[in-house]
Each structure stands twice: as C-alpha cells, then as structure tokens.
C-alpha cells in the first residue's frame, strides 16, 4: 500500500486510440504518456483535433462505438482502467473520477430539478441514504457557492444562468468526493468574469480536498493561470510536458512557441501573432479623414415581457403586475459613431446587447426607436424586410460568428461567395462571375481548387475565409464583424485577424468589431466601446480603455482575462 502513495494518481502509458471509419483506421491519439500526481493540477493544451478530448474519453472509457484503445495502459491509483469491467467502471465514474463537460446546459437533464440530479449521484454511489440525501445535496450546493441553496434545490436548469448551471455540474462532479476531476473545456462559452469565478471555485475546492485535476483547454492563458504542469498536444501526440512556469518562460517545442505567439496578450501587435520568420511590416496606418460613416443616436430595442403571463392574468381578471407590463430593454439608448476607415470594437459579456446593437446597425432587426444614419441618410426607419433590396444594402455587410452555421450546407464555396454578387452586384455572365469569385478567393487567401467544395469539406479557417470573401464581395464601406474568430483555434485566429486588418487598409473599409475578448479587440481596433446591460459604460481609444480604464466594469473585464506570463 505504501508505494501507491509515491506513484502518480493517474498514469497514462503509451496510449493509442484508434477510430474505425469508412476511410480506414484513424489514429486519434498516438503513444502518449501523461501522468498526474496526487493533488496536482495538470493542463492539457491543444487545438481542435489534437486528441485532448479523446484522451479524457479513453481514461473514462466513454469512447463511442467506433473508438478503440489500441495500445498502452491507463492506471488509476493502481487499478488498470483498460482491463476493468464495465460494471467496475460504472462505480469508478463519479466516485473516483469525475468529469465536467464543455456545455453545462447539455450536461444536465433539462427536465429534472437540479437538487434531484445531485441526489442521483449520491444515491448511485451510496454516499447518502434517502433520509439525509437532501441535506447533503444542499450542503454541496452551498459549497459551490450557490446563493439561497434551499431554494435553488428546486430549480430547473432553464431557470439558471450559464454560470449557475456550470456550478451545478461542478456540484454533481464533486458530490462523491472523487480523487480526480477531469474538466474538458469547462469555461468555453462562458463570459470571462464567470470563467474567472468558475476556475477559482474549481481550484479552491480541489485544493481543499487534495484532489487532482486535469484541465483540458485550448487556452494557454487559462492553463498557465491555474495549472502546475502543462502538457501540449498536437495531432494526437504529446509534444511537450513541463511545469507551467518553465513552459511559458522557455517553450522547447516549435509548436508550443507557435501557440504562445498566436495567443493575444498585452503588448503584442497583430503581426506578433504570426510566424516569427515573417518580415515585420509597418503597422497599418489608419487613414481617417474624420467624416462619420455611420452614426447611431439613442438607439433603443425593447422586447415585450411575458406576453403569456399577461394574457393569463387578464383571463383570470387580475391586473398584470407592473414588472410584467414594462417591456424588456435589450439596448437602452446607445449612441456612437464610426468614422471612415476606422475600426470600432464593441465589447461586453453575453446579454449586454452588443449583438442586438450590431443586428440593428446591420438592418436585420428593427429598432424600437433611435436613428441609424449611414452617410447622412437615416436607414433606421426603413423596415429590415425592405432593406434587403435597396442599394444601401451593398454598403453594410457582415462576417458572422460561426463560420459553419453561416454557410448553406448545400452551396459550394463559389456559390456562397457569388450569392451577393448575383443579387446586388453588377457582374453578369458565368465566366465573369467565376473570375470575380476567384479574385475574391485570392484576396482572402482561399486556394482556388477549394471553391468547388461544400462547407463540410472545408476546415474552420477555410470556412471563415469564405465568409469574409462573401462579405467583401460587394465592396462594402462598413463591415460588421460579429466575433469572427470565436469558433476558431488561436493559430487560425491569428491568421484571420491579420487578414482582416490587411483587407481593411487595402479596400478602405470601416469595421465594427463585436467581441467579448478585449485583447482581440485591441489588436484590430483603434476605438473601443464597452457595453453592459444595454448601455455604454465606457468608450474611448483602445489604448486608453485598456491601459487606463475609467469604469469599474471595464477594470473587472480586463482583470478577468487569463494570460500567459510573458
């Protein structure tokens, strides 16, 4: 028993995982060695397709049917997990090893009270009996710092915010006091301030209990901020293992260096994110002639609140309460302007109204009141439905957040790029159209042979390029970028951001860049607007807002961003 203590808690030796597909066997993870000591927090960092999730699935033995552990061993405190029976694994999961998944809403049952879901785990692993289970569940809710736990015990997941749901998931994972917690991108999709709170909670709880944690993430900054050791994975292989202090000071592997370079951080310029071999170009000078292109005045968007509840109240002869009658203001009196050649960043956390504002400026959504003036013409009064066919449509275009969702799965890349030209452009004839598409593809760096592919045959970065090509096809003056890199890996993000910057100066466009990430915004924008609950809390030059924030909320936002120690 004694030597068990000196052994690592989780020891992955020479692990190889294969997937049987129609196109032959794909090796997702190749001969990797990872070990996690007792009480240690280990970060596994890599981009999509690096095999980091597959590794954790293999440890938990929850690979899907096509997957197979082809080679190697996984030992958890002396127990061989690969040889364990399904029944034994069932006992291990949740009691000895727990997992937190990426999307908290998908990880909990939407139609069961959260308290009961915590009880399920406790009862399954005989950590409680019927008589004291509720008490224990409430105690765990308290530990994950849910306010008013007795009340929340009866809540359904839809009544809770994303951060609260993630706290519930953590509560379920930690309920049976496991020895190892595997967190698979636990904060992706959460706001930075929520991310900070969540990570601090996980680290505090696991440290207090002497647990080990494996944090799987694509974000080097996050791993650096919270882990003792870091494992970097690339295409199914471990390329570097080191303590987090060492890895950020002296990254040994070229891939680690590339990742670190591509991560937006304070003090870095756009060019710094790219390969070091590339000659440093002079930073793009901003040609602002000062004339305003888009002016937004006191823009308001209201949504009616709980219409059903109101009509029900009316039906039963009761007066609707004051709160019900008052409509919800998603955007509450926003004013700003974008000058020609300027790029303005619109920053805020989810629900702050930044997307609603951009959708209204885009004329896809009708404002309740306020004016949107494009080059002296008030376009806010034109209904969104009619705006599609006006010549002004050409002047404002958009790059969408999710490159996959924004491309019709049945259109080839060329057809997608040609769509705006066919409707609003002046290029006629098949050959001319094709030539224009190829020209645009070249502009955004999309290889010509990919033009005839369908979206599912393109990578994330290539899809993003198609989306950008489509947006610039009509020579717009203003392009709204709605988190254009949120769904991309950091190395791809670096390339796309540089591309956007280059296109801006070459085609003399203005950008409205909507994002939750202040560091990314700073790279591309000269002016920043910070929004919170429908209002603008701070605006100014990017430098001023980031380095000397005036508003409390802006300071909080900046402090919450984890970044690698440079």
């Amino acid at each position, binding site marked *: 028993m004694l030597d068990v203590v000196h052994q690592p808690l989780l020891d992955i030796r020479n692990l190889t995982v294969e997937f049987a*597909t*129609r196109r032959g066997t794909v090796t997702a993870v190749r001969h990797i060695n990872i070990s996690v000591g007792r009480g240690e927090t280990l970060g596994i960092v890599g981009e999509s397709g690096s095999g980091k999730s*597959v590794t954790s699935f293999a440890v938990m033995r929850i690979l899907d049917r096509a997957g197979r552990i082809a080679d190697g061993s996984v030992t958890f405190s002396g127990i061989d997990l690969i040889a364990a029976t399904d029944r034994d694994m069932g006992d291990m999961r949740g009691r000895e090893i727990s997992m937190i998944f990426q999307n908290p809403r998908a990880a909990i049952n939407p139609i069961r009270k959260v308290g009961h879901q915590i009880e399920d785990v406790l009862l399954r692993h005989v950590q409680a009996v019927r008589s004291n289970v509720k008490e224990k569940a409430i105690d765990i809710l308290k530990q994950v710092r849910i306010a008013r736990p007795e009340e929340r015990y009866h809540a359904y997941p839809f009544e809770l915010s994303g951060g609260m749901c993630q706290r519930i998931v953590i509560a379920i994972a930690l309920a049976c006091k496991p020895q190892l917690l595997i967190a698979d991108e636990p904060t992706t999709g959460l706001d930075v301030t929520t991310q900070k709170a969540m990570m601090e909670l996980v680290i505090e709880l696991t440290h207090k209990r002497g647990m080990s944690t494996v944090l799987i993430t694509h974000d080097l900054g996050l791993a650096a901020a919270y882990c003792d050791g870091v494992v970097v994975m690339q295409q199914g292989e471990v390329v570097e293992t080191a303590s987090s202090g060492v890895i950020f000071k002296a990254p040994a592997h070229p891939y680690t260096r590339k990742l670190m370079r591509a991560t937006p951080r304070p003090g870095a310029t756009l060019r710094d994110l790219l390969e070091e071999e590339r000659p440093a170009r002079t930073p793009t000078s901003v040609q602002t002639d000062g004339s305003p292109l888009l002016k937004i005045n006191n823009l308001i968007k209201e949504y009616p609140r709980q219409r059903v509840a109101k009509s029900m109240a009316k039906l039963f002869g009761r007066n609707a309460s004051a709160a019900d009658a008052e409509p919800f203001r998603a955007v509450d009196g926003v004013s700003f302007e974008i000058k020609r050649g300027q790029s303005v960043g619109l920053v805020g956390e989810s629900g702050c109204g930044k997307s609603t504002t951009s959708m209204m400026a885009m004329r896809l959504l009708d404002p309740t009141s306020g004016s949107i003036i494009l080059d002296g013409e008030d376009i806010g009064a034109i209904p969104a*439905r009619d705006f599609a066919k006006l010549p002004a449509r050409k002047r404002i275009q958009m790059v969408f*957040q*999710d490159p996959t969702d*924004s491309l019709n799965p*049945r259109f080839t890349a060329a057809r997608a790029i040609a769509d*705006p030209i066919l409707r609003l452009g002046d290029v006629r004839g098949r050959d001319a159209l094709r030539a224009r598409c190829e020209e645009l593809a070249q502009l955004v760096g999309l290889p010509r042979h990919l033009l005839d592919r369908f979206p599912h045959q393109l990578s994330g970065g290539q899809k993003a390029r198609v989306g950008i090509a489509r947006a610039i096809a009509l020579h717009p003056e203003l392009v709204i970028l709605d988190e254009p890199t949120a769904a991309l890996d950091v190395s791809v993000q670096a390339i796309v951001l540089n591309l956007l910057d280059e296109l801006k100066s070459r085609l003399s466009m203005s950008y409205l860049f909507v994002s939750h990430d202040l560091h990314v915004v700073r790279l591309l924008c000269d002016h920043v607007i910070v929004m919170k609950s429908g209002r603008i809390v701070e605006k100014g030059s990017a430098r001023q807002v980031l380095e000397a924030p005036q508003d409390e909320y802006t300071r909080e936002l900046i402090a919450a961003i984890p970044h690698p120690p440079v």
Partner: protein
Amino acid sequence: MTAFDTAVEAAAPPATGLSATLKHARHVVTGNPITGFSFTLFILLLACALFGSFFVPYDPLATNTAVALKPPSLHHLMGTDQLGRDLLSRVVVGTRLDMAVAIFSVALVFALGGISGIAAGYFGGWTDRLVGRLSDTIMAFPLFVLAMGIVAALGNTVTNIIIATAIINYPLYVRIARAEANVRRNAGFVQAARLSGNGEFRILLTQILPNILPIMMVQMSLTMGYAILNAAGLSFIGLGVRPPTPEWGIMVAEGAAFIVSGEWWIALFPGLALMLAVFCFNLLGDGLRDIVDPQRRT
C-alpha cells in the same frame, strides 16, 4: 465529437459532388444487408409495375371456369380464383395500380404539405396559424374514416383515392416541414442570404427548401407504404377501384369469403404482396435516412 471529426477530415480529403454521394449510397446499400434487401425489393416492385403486364403468363382479366378455385400448381403458381383467373398474373399486374396511387398521392402531399409547412415555419404569424389549424382539423378525424368520407363524397375513382390519401397525410408533412423550416429561419446562412439582398421567397426556395429536402425524402418513403395500405384498405371495403380490375385490396376482399371453405391462396398472395410492399418502403426509409443524413457517415 469535434476533435474526432477534424482528425478524420485531416486523414482523407473527401471527394466532391455526385460521385461522393453515389459512393456513399453504395456503402450504405452494401454495408447493411437489410437496406440492400429493401432496395432490391423496391427495384423488383418497380419492374412489376412498369413491365408486369408484358411478362405475366396469363391475361389477368381472362376468366376460365374450368380451372376455377385451383390451389397453387406448376401451371398456376399462385392458384386461381373463383372465376378461374390466374392469381400470379393478377398480383403482378395489380402492382402498377397500387404503386401509382402511392406515388402520386405522396407527390401531391409533398407538394402541398411540404410547401405550406415550410412557409408556416419560416414566416410564422398568420400563415403559421392558418396552416396549423388546417392540419389540426384534419388530425381531428380518424384518418381512415376521413379518407372513406372523401372518396364516398367525391366518387369512386382512382383520382379521388389519390386525393383522399394525400389529404390524410397532409398533417404529417406540414409538421415535419414546419419544424425543420422553423429551426433554420434565423440560421446564420439565412441571415447571410438576407444581407446578400435575397427576398424572403427566394430564401425560402434556394436556402431553406434544399436543406429540408433530404428529411422530406425519408418521410415520403415511409408514407408510401402507408399510402399503399390506405388505397388497398379503401378497395377492400368497396370504396376503391371496382372489380374486375386487378388490385391487391379488392383481391384480398374477394378472397376473404373463400378462406372459410379452405381456399386460402386467393386472399394470401395479394395480401403477401401488400405486406412486402409496405415492408419494403418502411425499410427503404431507414436506408434513405442513412444515405441523406451526413451525421451517420461514420
């Protein structure tokens, strides 16, 4: 699992266009014996429907009282009926009528239900309420009784059977098309199409419809079996086509009277054909789903 998908993509750049679809179809058909079987059966049924009348051994309408009520033999593989007509010939020739009713009624309901359902899901509001209430009204009746009523009111013709079958299937199509259009109405690519200057109707036809088509195809195959059953059912109770036309439903109805006296083959063989056809279309639906649903391409 995104990590895995990208790994697969990196391993093998996929082929494009039609050849990839054909390759995938071949994989599904050969990879799953049941799907392969249903596709073979479907081709067989189609051949019977198109060319059956050219290769059957006897005239399906010719009576010959000398050989009435003969059990299956080498001369008459499925036996003969009370008027001495060859059952094999009648079953094979009957395929055409039953298949025609199924195909035309499904095509009709696809056009009506599909388009109104997509419009309801996409536009919402009044269109949605109108289409929704119409399908609710149809759903309020026992469907077979409704079909009986329609045929009884409109008259006993093949066209009216097709119309009745289409009407009772209408709510199914509306619901599927509506739900699928509804989830896509604010998808990124639809928003992008609006930015490109597409009008609402063009978006409906070029962006939404092609994406819903595969799901509707599966539904079509599944309702096809139901349509055959429905047409045969109407004929069985005397509301369909009239004798002596060879049709499976009437043949089962005619044969039912003879089962008591021991002449089982008259009802059995057309019934068996009916069962096989319905079975075939249901299995075909599963196979089609595997072909059109890219999620299942593991």
